[in-house]
C-alpha cells in the first residue's frame, strides 16, 4: 500500500460508498438487468485500430461471440443478428489488468491487529456494490488483483476479480484463477501495530512485534517454520487417513498452500535489501515469490529478481512519498524489463486505477519502451503475473472478450474510454452513462423532495428534556 496512512483514513469509513451512480434508475435492480444480460450478445467491433499486444497492431475488426473473441482480422465474418459497434477512428485494446488494487473490499483492507493474518480472506468481504468498480471500468480496467493491505508481514488471502458491475460478490471472482496471499516488508508492517506502544487517544497500547526489518524477516521465517510442521502433520495424516485428523488452522493452511505452490505470494516491498531478504527466505523454504509489489528499488537488484523468477509490479513515476521510496526512479519499470523481469504497472489506488493507460504511457517516455511493450505492462504482463494469460491480457482468438474501446490513442492522456466489454458483455458505455445522468439526478431529487414532504407535517416541536 503506497499511501498507507491515507488508506487507513479511508478505512475509517470516510467515503460513504454509493453515490449517484449507484442504482441506475430506480434501483440496483434495473442496473443489474441492464448490465448483465443472461446470454452475451454477438458483437462486431468494426474498423478499429486493434492493438492486440501479443500480435501487433492493425486496422480491422473483432468478432465477439459467446463471451469470447471469435475472430480478429482486417475482415471478419459477420453472422446474422450480430450487433455492430462502429469503431472507425477508434482504438481497441485488451481489458486493462491492475495487479494491485484495494477496491471492492468491505469493512477494512487490513487485519492489522496481528503480524500474520493469513487466516483472513478478501474473498469473504468482496463488495460488488463499491462504486470504485464502475469507475475502474470507466477507466478501462476489466480485471484487478484485490489485495489485503500491507500492515502485516504476512497478510490476508487475496484473489483477482473481474469488474462485472452489477453481479454478486461471487460473480466478480475470476473463476479458476490461482488465489494469492499478501506479504509486506519494510515500514508498513513494522510500524503498523504501533510497535513502540505509544498511547492512542490517551490509552496505552500494547506494542505489536515486529518493530524493525529484522523483525519482519523473523516473523516470516517463524510463520513458515510453523507451516512446515503443520504441513508435515497433515501430510502424515493424508498418507494414512486413519485416526483423528490434525486441527485445521486457517492461518497455517494458507501458508501450507504457499509451500505447495497452490497460492501465489504477492509481496509489498520497496528497498533492495528487503527484496533480497525475501527472495532468500523463499529459497530457504522452497517456495516462489510470484510478484514483488511496488518494488521501487527493483532496478538495483533486477538480475536477482529475474533469477528467482518473480514478477515485478511497480509504479510509473511515483516516488518520495515515504522514506523508503526516496531511491525510486521512473526508469525502474524499463530497467527491470530489460534485465529480464516480467514487469507490470499498478495503481494501488481507486483513482489512479482509472487512468492506468497514461501510467503505461510514462514507460515510453522514461524507459524508451515501445508502445506495445508499455501497453503490455497493464495488460499481458499482469495477466502472466496472475497466471491468467490464457484467458485475458491480449486480443487473441479464444480469449475472453475483455475489450476496451478508446476514442484516441490509448496511451494518451486525452484518450477517453468509450465502451468496455467483459466476457463479451458491455459493462460500460460512455454514451449511455452520460445520457442517463439527468434522469438519475431527477430521480434522486424526487426522493429528496418526497422525504422533505413526508417530514414536514410531522413538524412537532422538539420535546424538551424533562418534559
Amino acid at each position, binding site marked *: 500500500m503506497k499511501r498507507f496512512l491515507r488508506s487507513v483514513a479511508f478505512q475509517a469509513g470516510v467515503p460513504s*460508498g*454509493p453515490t449517484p451512480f449507484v442504482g441506475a434508475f430506480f434501483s440496483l435492480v434495473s442496473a443489474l438487468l441492464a448490465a448483465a444480460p443472461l446470454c452475451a450478445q454477438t458483437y462486431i467491433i468494426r474498423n478499429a485500430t486493434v492493438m492486440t499486444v501479443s500480435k501487433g497492431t492493425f486496422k480491422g475488426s473483432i468478432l465477439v461471440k459467446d463471451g469470447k473473441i471469435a475472430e480478429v482480422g482486417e475482415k471478419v465474418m459477420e453472422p446474422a443478428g450480430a450487433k455492430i459497434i462502429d469503431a472507425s477512428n477508434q482504438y481497441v485494446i485488451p481489458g486493462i489488468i491492475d495487479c494491485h488494487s484495494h477496491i471492492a473490499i468491505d469493512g*477494512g483492507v487490513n487485519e492489522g491487529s496481528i503480524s500474520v493474518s493469513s487466516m483472513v480472506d478478501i474473498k469473504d468481504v468482496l463488495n460488488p456494490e463499491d462504486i470504485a468498480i464502475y469507475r475502474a471500468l470507466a477507466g478501462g480496467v476489466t480485471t484487478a488483483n484485490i489485495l489485503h493491505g500491507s500492515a502485516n508481514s504476512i497478510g490476508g488471502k487475496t484473489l483477482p476479480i473481474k469488474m462485472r458491475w452489477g453481479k454478486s460478490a461471487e460473480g466478480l471472482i475470476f473463476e479458476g484463477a490461482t488465489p494469492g496471499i499478501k506479504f509486506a516488508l519494510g515500514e508498513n508492517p513494522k510500524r503498523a501495530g504501533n510497535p513502540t506502544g505509544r498511547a492512542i487517544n490517551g490509552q496505552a497500547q*500494547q506494542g505489536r512485534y515486529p518493530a524493525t526489518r529484522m523483525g519482519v524477516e523473523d516473523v516470516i521465517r517463524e510463520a513458515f517454520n510453523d507451516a512446515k510442521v503443520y504441513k508435515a502433520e497433515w501430510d502424515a495424516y493424508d498418507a494414512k487417513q486413519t485416526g483423528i485428523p490434525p486441527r485445521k488452522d486457517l492461518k497455517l493452511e494458507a501458508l501450507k498452500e504457499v509451500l505447495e505452490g497452490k497460492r501465489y505470494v504477492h509481496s509489498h516491498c520497496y528497498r533492495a535489501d528487503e527484496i533480497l531478504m525475501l527472495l532468500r527466505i523463499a529459497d530457504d523454504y522452497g517456495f516462489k515469490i510470484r510478484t514483488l509489489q511496488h518494488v521501487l528499488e527493483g532496478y538495483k537488484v533486477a538480475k536477482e529478481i529475474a533469477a528467482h523468477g518473480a514478477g515485478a509490479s511497480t509504479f510509473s513515476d511515483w516516488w518520495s512519498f515515504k522514506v523508503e521510496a526516496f531511491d525510486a526512479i521512473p526508469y525502474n519499470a524499463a530497467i527491470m524489463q530489460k534485465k529480464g523481469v516480467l514487469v507490470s504497472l499498478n495503481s494501488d489506488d481507486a483513482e489512479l486505477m482509472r487512468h492506468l493507460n497514461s501510467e503505461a504511457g510514462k514507460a515510453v517516455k522514461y524507459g524508451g519502451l515501445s508502445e506495445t511493450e508499455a501497453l503490455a505492462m497493464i495488460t499481458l504482463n499482469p495477466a502472466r503475473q496472475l497466471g491468467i494469460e490464457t484467458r485475458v491480457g491480449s486480443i487473441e482468438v479464444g480469449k475472453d472478450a475483455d475489450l476496451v474501446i478508446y476514442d484516441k490513442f490509448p496511451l494518451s492522456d486525452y484518450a477517453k474510454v468509450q465502451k468496455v466489454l467483459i466476457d463479451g458483455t458491455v459493462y460500460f458505455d460512455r454514451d449511455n452513462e452520460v445520457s442517463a445522468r439527468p434522469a438519475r439526478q431527477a430521480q434522486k431529487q424526487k426522493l429528496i423532495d418526497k422525504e422533505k414532504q413526508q417530514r414536514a407535517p410531522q413538524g412537532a416541536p422538539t420535546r424538551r428534556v424533562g418534559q
Partner: protein
Amino acid sequence: MKNLVTALFLGCALALAQSHPAVAIHNAKIVTVSGSVINKGTVVVRHGLIEAVGENVAVPSDAMLVEGEGLTVYPGLIDALSTWGQPGAAPAAAATTAGRGGRGTTTATPTTTATAATQAAAIPARGPEDRPQTTSWVKIADEVNSTDRRIETARGAGFTTAVTFPTRGIFAGQGAVIDLLTAEKPGEMIVASPVGQYISIARGGGGGGMGGGFPGSLMGYIAYLRQIYLDAEHYKLVKDTYAKNPVGMTRPEYDRALEGVLDSPRILLPANRLVEIDRMLHLAADLKQPVIIYGGRETFRPEAAALLKQFNTPVLLSMRWPEASRDADPDEPDSMRTLDTRDRAALAPAVLQQAGVKFAFYSDGLDQARDLQRAVKKALDNGLSREDALRALTLSPAEIYGVANRLGSIEPGKIGNLVVTRGDIFDDRTKVEMILVDGRKYVPAPDASPMGGRGAASDPGVK
C-alpha cells in the same frame, strides 16, 4: 412410582391452581392465527395453558368469567430478538455496519449487560485462539430477571413473550424464549433455552485493528467465525473419541467457548445490506449451521428476498425503519442508495411475504407502545396485510425458534398467553383490556392501547 407421579401431578396442579385460576373469555372475537377467526367464541385458560377454544365451548363453573362482548382475543405478541428481561441491557442492535452502507441505524455497542461477560482482556487478542469477545457459554436463561422495567411496558403493548439474547461481543451467548411475567423466581419466565447463539459483527477499534486486538476488520471477524466452527468440529471429534476410551489418550483441553458454540441449536447472524445478506447466507452454509438473519434492512430488494428463499433462511426484521438523520446537512444529500433504502425499507415485510420467506419482527430497542405501533403501521401502509403482520409477531417467531408447539397461536394445550383488546390490535385507538401471560392476568395501566397510546406502565424515572 405411579403414586409418586400422581402426587407430583397433584402438587403441581395445586400450586398452579393457586396462582393461576382458570379464566374464560366468553363471547369474544378470537383471532387464533393458526386457524380461522372465530367471530364469537370462548377461550378457556387453566393452569397456565389454553384448555379450550371454540364457538361452542362451555364456560367451566370454576372459571373466572370475562364477558367478551366487543373484545378481541389474540395470541400474545412475541419480540423475536430482544434484551427484555435483562435489566440494564442495551437493545440488541441491528448490527453490521461494517464498511460503507446506508447511514441509517448504526450499531450501538451495548455498554452494559447483565451477563457474566468477561471484560476485554488487558492484552489484545492475537488471533482466533484467544477467543476474542466471546462468551458463547453464557446462557441468558441464567441471567433473566423480571425486575426489568421494560417488561411491564412491553406487556402494555401486547407482548407476552420475548426471545432474549445476550448481545455483547462476537459470540455473545445463548438466548432464551421467556414469558414476560412478573415472577418471583426468574426461572418461571423461561419457556425454552438455549434457542440460539447471538453473533454480532462490528468494526473493531482502531483502523484495521492497529493497536487493538484481533479481529480488527470485517474479514478478521469472518475468519474468526470460520476458525471457531472448524475448531468446534475438531473438538467434538476429539472429545467423543476420548469419551469412548480415555485410556492411553491425552486428555483434550476443556474449551468453554467451543462448548458454548456446540450447545447452540442455531446462530443469529447480522445482515442489513443486500451484500451482507448474500455474504452471511453463504457463510452460514460454509459453517454448516442453521441460521437466522437479523436486521434485514434491504430485504425490500427482491434479490435479497430471493436469496433468503433460496437458502430457506428466516429473517428477523428490525422494527426501526431507517430514517434520515435529523441533524443531516441539508446541503449534502444522502446517496441515491441511502435515499432509496429509506424510501422503500418498509416494503420489506410485504416483499418477503410475497417471496415466501419466513420473517418475524423484533423490537430493536423500541419498547414504547406507540413506537412499536407506528412501526407496524408503516409496514401495513406498505402493503403488508394485518394477518401477516400479526403472524410475524406471533406464530412466525415461534416457528423460527422451534417453539410453535407451545406459543404463537390460540390452540388447546399451548401456553396461555393472550392479549385481549377492544378493537383491532393494530389500530391506534384500540385499548388493551387485559393480558394473560402463562394464564396470569395483567391489566395495563388505564389508557393503554395495544401498541398505540401512552400507556401501560409509565415509568416516572424515564419520562
